């Protein structure tokens, strides 16, 4: 079974990035607000629940950007973001999820 935390540890080791802190961060979305901004400077946020996000949700950051498509909702890969992270829910959404990240603070 694919293990997110194990995968994160292995990948950061491969990339020679030492982890100072591994934690979790959530963004609770709410009706009437479609844009959210999180600061993730000198750290990484790994999206863990892309499958529950509305199709068309865009997450843009200084290092990576994704738009949630039906294909992405099926995969278990972790998208990684760093710097200023902007989350844009699609205008027509009626579903407001809690967006979950694994937070990695590097040395």
């Amino acid at each position, binding site marked *: 079974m694919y293990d997110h935390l194990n995968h994160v540890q292995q990948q950061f080791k*491969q*990339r*020679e*990035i030492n982890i100072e802190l591994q934690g979790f961060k959530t963004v609770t979305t709410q009706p009437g607000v479609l844009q959210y901004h999180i600061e993730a400077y000198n750290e990484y946020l790994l999206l863990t629940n892309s499958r529950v996000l509305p199709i068309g949700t*865009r997450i*843009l950051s*200084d*290092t*990576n*950007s*994704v*738009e949630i498509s039906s294909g992405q909702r099926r995969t278990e890969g972790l998208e990684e973001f*760093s710097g200023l992270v902007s989350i844009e829910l699609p205008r027509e959404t009626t579903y407001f999820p809690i967006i979950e990240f694994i937070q990695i603070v590097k040395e």
Partner: protein
Amino acid sequence: MAVTRYQIISLRVQHAGEILKFQHKIPAYLTCCTGFKLSMVGVMPPALMNTTLGRLSASFNSLKEEAITASLKHEVLAAKDFQQLEVQLHPGQIVSGVYVDEQLSEAFKPYRVNLYLRCTDKEGQTTKTKAACTTT
């Protein structure tokens, strides 16, 4: 004598707001990237002159070094020089990144984005410590 080779990563943007990811393997004999240039290929409506078309970020050495974050602007004098880059390459590793189109949908026309990487097989000035890559 050092050789300089240009790696070209070409991306086709087909709709407004498109997010394009890329991966490119730099040949193992190249040891250093010393410059990069981002340019648009295609015809753009005049209304988009001097506007930002999108932005690109790229990392080297299989996600070990985040080295490029750049905006792509549509300008009259587009012949820009290479911007400086100082990345020591690990052999056979991957350059990966993402391009995000930032245009408004009404004026959009498909276009191509080229990222040129200027790389060399010459080692950086390594005596005892790793130093910056050199272009000569």
